[in-house]
Each structure stands twice: as C-alpha cells, then as structure tokens.
C-alpha cells in the first residue's frame, strides 16, 4: 500500500488529527493564541485594578475573584478535556488523543492548585482563616487528588503506550465518579454548615465586576489552550525523538551483529 492510498482512505477528521498536520496547524496558530491570551490578560489586569469598583461587601478583596474564578473554571475544564481525550483514545485509538490527555494533566493540576491557593488567600480576610471546609474548596482539593493520581499513574507505568491506555481508563472512571463526589461533598457541607459563612459569590454579581471577570476568564482560557498546544507539541516531538533513538540503537545493534557474523 503506497502512502497516497493511505491518505485517500482517511476521513477528514483523521487527516486533521494527523500528528504532522497538527504540528503545522498548531505551529501557525500558537503565536496568535499566546499573543491574544497575553493581550486579554493584560487588559483584564487593567480592568481589575483601575476600572472595577469595590464590592460593597468584600471591599478590594473582590480583586482576587478575577483570577480565582477563572482558575476554578479551567481546573474543571482541564479535567473535562482529559475525559474527552481519554474517550477519544479508548474508542478511536488515536494517539493524538493520548498526547492531549497527557499534556492537559499538569496544566489542569496547576490551575487547580491556583484556584485553591487564591481561594485560601481570599478566605483569610473573608472568613478569618486560610482554610474552611467549604464545599467548593473541598471539591477542588479532591479534583487536585484526581489530577495527582493521573500524573502519578502515568509516571509509574514504564511502557508509555500502556500508561496512556491505563490513564484513559482512570480518566473516564474519574469523570463518572466526579459528579457523585461533588454531590456528596455538597450534601456533607450543608449538614455541617457553620452559621456565619459569607458566600464567596452570591447569585447576583454586579455588572461592573462581571465584565472584567469575563475578559479575565477568556484570557486565561486562551492561555490554557496555548499551554496545552505547546505541551502537545513537546510530547509529539518527544515521541518522535524516542522512536528515532530506538531506531538508531537497533541499527547499531544490527551492524555490530553483522560485524560479528562476518
């Protein structure tokens, strides 16, 4: 079968998901993505510090919200991305889906950590303590454990192809359990709700605060995708490097075997 036959048999999505094509596409898109992310984040910072008013209840600490809430969203989106990639890898067996799942894990974990750290720093002035067993903070912490599990499993299994498949199974198990964990933590929290907890963000948010939050969320989402694309590019190159190294070792071994025979 010649290479052109293979190409013609591939569907459109398969051709788009071809690693070489991905490298070309992401190579052209990445600078724009990163540039747009940087511009939006800078604009969001300007809005947050110079335009957005104080919250009547939380004062200036509401500025932490502009980075805390996007981090929490991206932490969840990161896991959703891993789940979708895991599904894609297990069902369609496409190596690029595994690359995507692997690249998303550390980035998602970083945003989960940031959501926890900024939430804790927000909690100190609001609640008077760095940590409360608030339902959202607790769920975030458990999400961080799930990320740790994925990263640890990936690094513990030596065979990379097998590690990808096992991580895909774990990712899908995690995403099916996650709603149940969220439900049980919420339920547990309402049972043990302390009397004086200021809600982190009430149902109504002032429009003057909403706009900077939205800009910030879009900016950090673009940053997430830029980082994810960069991580995927690194991983593709790393796999290429590995197969080249193996090929070289094989050849060297073959040459020495031939020399020994001759």
């Amino acid at each position: 079968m010649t290479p052109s036959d293979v190409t013609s048999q591939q569907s459109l999505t398969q051709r788009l998901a071809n690693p070489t094509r991905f490298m070309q596409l992401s190579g052209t898109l990445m600078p724009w993505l990163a540039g747009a992310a940087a511009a939006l984040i800078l604009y969001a910072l300007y809005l947050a510090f110079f335009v957005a008013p104080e919250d009547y209840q939380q004062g200036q600490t509401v500025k932490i919200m502009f980075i805390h809430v996007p981090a929490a969203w991206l932490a969840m989106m990161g896991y959703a991305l891993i789940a979708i990639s895991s599904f894609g890898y297990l069902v369609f067996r496409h190596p690029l889906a595994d690359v995507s799942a692997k690249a998303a894990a550390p980035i998602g974990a970083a945003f989960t950590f940031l959501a926890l750290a900024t939430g804790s720093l927000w909690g100190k002035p609001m609640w008077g303590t760095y940590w409360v067993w608030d339902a959202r903070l607790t769920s975030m912490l458990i999400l961080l454990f799930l990320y740790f599990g994925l990263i640890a499993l990936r690094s513990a299994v030596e065979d990379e192809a097998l590690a990808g498949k096992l991580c895909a199974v774990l990712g899908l198990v995690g995403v099916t359990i996650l709603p149940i964990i969220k439900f049980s933590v919420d339920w547990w929290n309402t049972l043990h709700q302390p009397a004086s907890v200021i809600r982190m963000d009430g149902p109504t948010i002032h429009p003057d605060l909403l706009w900077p939050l939205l800009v910030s969320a879009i900016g950090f989402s673009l940053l997430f995708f830029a980082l994810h694309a960069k991580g995927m590019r690194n991983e593709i190159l790393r796999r290429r490097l590995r197969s080249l190294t193996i090929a070289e070792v094989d050849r060297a071994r073959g040459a020495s075997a031939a020399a020994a025979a001759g």
Partner: protein
Amino acid sequence: MSAFWTLLKRDLLLQVREGGAVGTALGFYLVVVTMMPLGLGPDLNLLSRIAPGVLWIALLLSALLSLPRIFEADDEDGSLEVIATGDLPLELATAAKALAHWISTGIPLALLAPVLGLLLNLELSAYPVLVATMFAGTPAISFLGAVGAALTLRVRRGGLLLALLVLPLYIPTLIFGIAAISAATGGPSGVQASFLILSAISLFSLVLGPVAAAAAIRFQTQ
C-alpha cells in the same frame, strides 16, 4: 453463568486455604482503631462522637491493604491471562473476583466493626445502623478498589499509588456511611436517605468497577 460461580468459589477457596490475608486486614483494623484513643486521649464523650468516622476510615484503610491481592496472585502464575482469554467475559470475571474480595474481606471487617465500636464507646442505638451501612457500603470499596488494583497490576510497588488512586473514589461512600450512623445517634440527617444513597453508590460501583477493571486488565494482558 456457572463459570462465574466457579471462579468465585475458586477465589474464595484460595483465600481460605492461604488464610493470613483476612487475618492481617482484621488485625490492622483493630490496631488502627486502638491507636485513636491513644492519640486523642481516653475522653469517652469525644470518642463516642468521632466513633463513626474512625470506624469507617480505619475500615477503608484496612480494605485498601488487601486490594492488591485481588489480581496479584493470578497475574503472577499466569492464570489471569487464561481468564482474560476464556469464555467468561472479563467483565464478569473481574466482578467475580471483586465479589470474592467483598465476601472474604468486606464482610469480616463489617462484622468486626461493632466490636471495635465498644472500644470507642459508640452509642448502643447506632449498632444496627453501623452494621447495616457497612454491609451496604463495603461492596463499593471492593468494586471500586478492583479498578485501582487492576490499574496498578504491573506497577512495581504499586501499593502507595493504589491508595492515591482509590481513596478519592471512596469519598462518597465515606460521607454517606458516616452520615447514616450519625443520624442514628441524633445527627442532623435522616438515616433512610443516607442509607439509600449509600446503597445507590454501591450499586453504581457494581457496574462501573468490573467494566473499568476489565478494560485495564485487557490492556495489560494483551
């Protein structure tokens, strides 16, 4: 279906003949619960208040210790590959092995719990609920644990990794198990609601666990 029962019977027989493992889990359970008063002080009021939590968490840890055994021995002597390529769907085979784990470890631990409750001055009215919730909740421990055991099957010294993977999955079981017992001793929620949700979680893991564990084993025995 008879292959399922054969496999279950075989696993249980192996457990009985080898012995040891169940005794170790029970001994560990006893030791961990004994450490609690030693660490927190012998205040009986405090102990009876935290008894449900202590009993559940120690039970989770004890069960965790025995999880690698679900697939380990069969993988070492090669019979897991035979099972994986046999007539019985691997999903049912993993279900049989998880069920064997529940019968050989989950039930003994659940039966030991009320005895340990005496050590912690658990209120008498809570005992029936304690045993009932543990019977309803421990299947989730075995069946979700089977997923972790299958994922870390070929990982060298996978015990710690197994704990990291599996413990977060046990959180719903833990929360509703404790809530039901607390409710029986005058806690804020209803016993029935917690118990039903706990059972639902176990039933859900009965489906999810074997399917995911079978997928993980299939990738490793190919």
